[in-house]
């Protein structure tokens, strides 16, 4: 579709800008302001970047940062391919579609403060079952087992979102594409590589960004499951921030928030740019999308 150039289109963005300005931009500016001041007995003192320096100079921060990055990487490596695989294997029409969509949506609809509670009940059952066959699964005290539990919980909770996004774009591929591919004798892999994957590029970018942002800042679920333990082995950036907020250290928490925000924007921008470059490289992908429009 050819878009006409018209800078007056900015007027259409005004309501969204005003609303987001009110609920997002003004609060963010207040956070920046707070992070540069220390508050003593209701008196605000300019401290500049002291809090930022304090946070960034501790090895504790960088350890937590590495842990969160590892967690996000594991989540993306598991959930994105799994989501694609399930979206590809889902029925495309008939009554089973409704069954699949409704049952897959259930984890997404559980209140977030209940996820960890449901899982601690389930993990206790799992622990008992595994011990009867002689396997030791100590998800409270063994760091590796806690990681397995938290990753499983996240996969359970969020993979359906990736499935929904991929599925919705897969169903828009015209049947004619598949017929042509079948006539040409294309292998299953080639159909995926040159028809389905290019079509899903946009939603995959979205799924990757959403899952990255949320897993990198994950807070409630691991915190309620094991409070960052055992011995800080599941302490993520979100939990450290939550601890600062809970102990009313607002200025350091504000500085921390801004550091996190900058990290997330940079990483998201890298993902976006990387996938955009991939788009211009991929001749076949471009051709199929163009033909479809």
């Amino acid at each position: 579709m050819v878009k006409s150039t018209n800078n007056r289109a900015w007027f259409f963005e005004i309501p969204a800008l005003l609303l987001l300005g009110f609920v997002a931009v003004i609060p963010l500016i207040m956070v920046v302001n707070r992070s540069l001041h220390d508050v003593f007995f209701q008196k605000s003192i300019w401290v500049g970047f002291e809090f930022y320096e304090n946070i960034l100079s501790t090895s504790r921060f960088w350890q937590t940062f590495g842990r969160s990055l590892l967690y996000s990487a594991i989540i993306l490596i598991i959930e994105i391919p799994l989501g694609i695989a399930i979206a590809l294997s889902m029925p495309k029409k008939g009554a089973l579609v409704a069954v699949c969509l409704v049952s897959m949506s259930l984890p997404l609809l559980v209140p977030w403060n209940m996820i960890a509670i449901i899982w601690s009940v389930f993990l206790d059952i799992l622990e008992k079952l595994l011990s009867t066959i002689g396997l030791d699964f100590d998800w409270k005290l063994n760091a590796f087992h806690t990681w397995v539990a938290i990753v499983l919980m996240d996969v359970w909770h969020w993979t359906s979102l990736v499935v929904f996004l991929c599925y919705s774009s897969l169903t828009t591929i015209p049947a004619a594409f598949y017929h042509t591919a079948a006539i040409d004798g294309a292998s299953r892999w080639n159909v995926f590589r040159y028809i389905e994957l290019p079509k899903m590029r946009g939603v995959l970018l979205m799924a990757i960004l959403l899952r990255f942002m949320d897993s990198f800042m994950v807070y409630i679920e691991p915190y309620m499951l094991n409070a960052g333990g055992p011995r800080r082995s599941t302490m993520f950036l979100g939990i450290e921030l939550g601890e600062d907020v809970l102990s009313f250290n607002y200025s350091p928490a504000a500085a921390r928030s801004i550091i996190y925000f900058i990290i997330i924007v940079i990483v998201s921008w890298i993902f976006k740019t990387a996938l955009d470059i991939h788009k211009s490289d991929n001749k076949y992908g471009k051709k199929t999308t163009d033909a479809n429009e």
Partner: protein
Amino acid sequence: MKSKSSYLKHLHFRWLPTTFYITFLFLPLISLVYLSFLTILTGAPTPPVRQFTWSNYIHIFQNPALTASIINSVTYVIINILITIPVALIAAYAFSRYSFVGDKHLFFGFLTLRMTPPVVMVYPVYLIFSALDLVNTPLAIALAHCLFNVPISIWVLESFISAIPKELDETAFIDGYSFFRFFTRKLIPLMAPGIAVASFFCFMFSWVEVVFARILTVTAGKPITMAISALFSYRTDIGLVMAMTVLSIVPGALMIYFVRNHMAKGFTINQVN
């Protein structure tokens, strides 16, 4: 006959990942539903008594705090959708139909705001909303949730608008439609599936959110998530907690059942990205 049996074999193999996945999803949910039908009182001196009962579900409707929380949750989600969708629809229309200075940066900018973790915003949002005397009202939660719902809705609606040919706009304007009439009479009816899907996304992210919901409801207006938190005490009635959780899943499951056919109609961000 032979071809049919091989077809069936193929079919079963094809659905294997989905079947496994759904089974995995149901395992924790089964224990949730099972517990919601049991009366157990932890912390009691006698060994816990377990028996099958409907009483947990009956207790929900006898508990004014819980019934009020259901009403609060429904109210703030509806207000949120009513604010988000019109704002996002207009913004998405501009992104879909026009290119303008800084459009790509603005689109990424909106997504950036979606990336802000709620914990970051808790303190200033509380200050602003208490200055405006909005704390403890469903409106406060509805507005705060616009932070993540507006960017997502703009993206969802943009892809749906881009699927509608531009000729629709042009013929409508030639026919003398004003912009407002074109929007309400032509575009919105065609956009119904997109609006349904965007509303589902708003619902999904808003219904289950706890960080803003906690900070903005101190004494009153508590939504379902916070009402469940309030049930935890020294002698927590786990059965009641689980029954409330099961009940809180139902509206969303119904909603996705109604929008299921629209889930399939396009979500591509080729246009802006």
